[in-house]
């Protein structure tokens, strides 16, 4: 890249980059520091004297303790993890199959269906959640994790399909042709040849679907009601804002700990996440 002298490098590249990284990551630092800060230090007005916001000399675990003792936070984590994993599996299953069908097979309404699936991505969840509540009631799924496990795929599948279509299209047809010449049925060719090659794509879709599930809020807000069924975003929002005291300590602790599973899973699959994201955009 055409860069030039060292000072130019610093002014035009490094310093802006450092600023970007700082702004993007500072809220997380703030989350961390608030989690470990005792209440007395936390509630100091912004213009009070002796206020050192960026560091604390008395780190404490009281907020985390409060989180686990006074709320069902551990249960929420389990719920969210369970719902995310199962929804992801379902969505991957449907998305891989649908993606293959749309990318590889010739049948009359292929284009139309592809567009339809994309259009469903446009339908906002805030339109659907009211009538969905009734459907959930009719199936007696209200207040169970299944109400979410069956509804999350509605926004995960279009994305997975879209992504897998791109991956499948990139796999050379020759691979399948060889298998078919050797006598494999269409279905077997798909199962044993194409899908294994598309595993990176599957991982990418999976990790993106997983993070999207953790991020969902409105369905969880409306369909779940008992404290022991809640997901982390809903639980943190509804049970840590209490009366007079906003409980920022445990709230930040909840936000921090709630973010960690996603961050960890993401960190194992960064490459896949990035290629999935960019693949979906290029595709």
């Amino acid at each position, binding site marked *: 890249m055409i860069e030039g002298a060292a000072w130019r490098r610093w002014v035009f590249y490094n310093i802006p*980059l450092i600023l970007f990284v700082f702004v993007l990551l500072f809220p997380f630092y703030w989350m961390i520091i608030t989690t470990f800060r005792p209440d007395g230090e936390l509630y100091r007005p912004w213009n009070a004297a002796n206020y050192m916001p960026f560091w604390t000399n008395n780190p404490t675990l009281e907020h985390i303790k409060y989180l686990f003792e006074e709320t069902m936070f551990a249960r929420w984590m389990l719920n969210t993890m369970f719902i995310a994993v199962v929804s992801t599996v379902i969505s991957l299953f449907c998305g891989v199959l649908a993606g293959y069908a749309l990318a590889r097979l010739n049948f009359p309404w292929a284009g139309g269906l592809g567009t339809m699936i994309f259009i469903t991505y446009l339908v906002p969840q805030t339109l659907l959640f009211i009538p969905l509540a009734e459907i959930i009631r009719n199936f007696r799924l209200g207040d169970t994790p299944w109400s979410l496990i069956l509804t999350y795929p509605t926004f995960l599948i279009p994305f997975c399909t879209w992504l897998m279509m791109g991956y499948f299209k990139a796999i050379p047809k020759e691979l399948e042709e*060889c298998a078919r010449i050797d006598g494999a049925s269409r279905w077997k060719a798909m199962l044993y040849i194409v899908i294994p090659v598309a595993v990176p794509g599957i991982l990418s879709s999976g990790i993106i679907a997983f993070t999207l599930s953790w991020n969902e809020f409105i369905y969880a807000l409306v369909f779940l009601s008992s404290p022991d069924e809640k997901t982390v975003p809903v639980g943190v929002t509804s049970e840590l804002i209490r009366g007079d005291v906003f409980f920022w300590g445990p709230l930040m602790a909840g936000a921090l700990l709630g973010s960690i599973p996603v961050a960890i899973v993401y960190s194992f699959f960064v490459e896949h996440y990035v290629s999935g994201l960019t693949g979906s955009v290029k595709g």
Partner: protein
Amino acid sequence: MAVTAVSGVEARRPVPRLRRLEDERWLALALLMPTAVLLGLFIAYPFIEGVLLSFSSARVGDAGHFVGLKNFAKIWDDSIFRTAVWNTFWYTGVTTVFKLGLGLWLAMLLNRHFKGKALVRAFILLPFIIPTVLSTFAWKWMFDPTFSVINWTLFHLGLISARINWLGDPDLAMASIIVVNIWRGVPFFAISLLAGLQTISPELNEAAAIDGARPWARFWYVTWPLLLPVTMVVMLFSVIQTFADFQLVYVMTGGGPANATQLFATYAYQIGIGTGLLSEGAAISLAMFPFLFIIVVVQLLYIRRVETR
């Protein structure tokens, strides 16, 4: 690899052409069935129900009866609804422009080799990965009227003397949610655009430089056109998400102060679930759809035009 896998399959004569066509259709049906069932049951059916709901007078506990377009007339008359429409467009427009600009800048900053590049790339996606509700809480705490760390910093830098009422002043509240949305979206734009940039051969830019083109011209005539397809797709996704945004506003301001940050989604929730006027809530949600549809169609057409250029 393909050969070893196939050797286990028993050899059979090639399938006649007719059978293969039917095979393909049957297979397509089977493969698409799970998706069709799930999406049909949980999107198509509720969508139709939602449309019917918006034509009724249903409220919580009362199924109501058909009232035609009355709900839509009512919300069009509703000044809060009109405010929400304006807010949503403003919010989407401003954030998209900034996310594009800043995202592009960041992508260009990352489009070179330096130590720790992979690490930086991984870290900057965090705002996009972490559940919106949780990171928005962190921002809410940072903007708190009494305890804001931002105010503290500005105060100590000597830039302000009275506190800034981030979430209490109507204009500042809108600015605050815009800031948080941009913060969340820039990584998505940056990473996607970076991938786009990486497909552009550096030789093109070098050739232009040798020909005497200055940086801005190089960007505008070489880089930007090649980046356009990717940019348009990224913008499409982003606009859809931002237009229908709920979580961020719900947590930060709840639509306030005095509806200054009320969007389609939050207003639909407040009327539908908060006040229990289900049919009006559905009407508000449905009203989002035509706008979204037009925006998407326009963008898709533009993409098609760009790609065939």
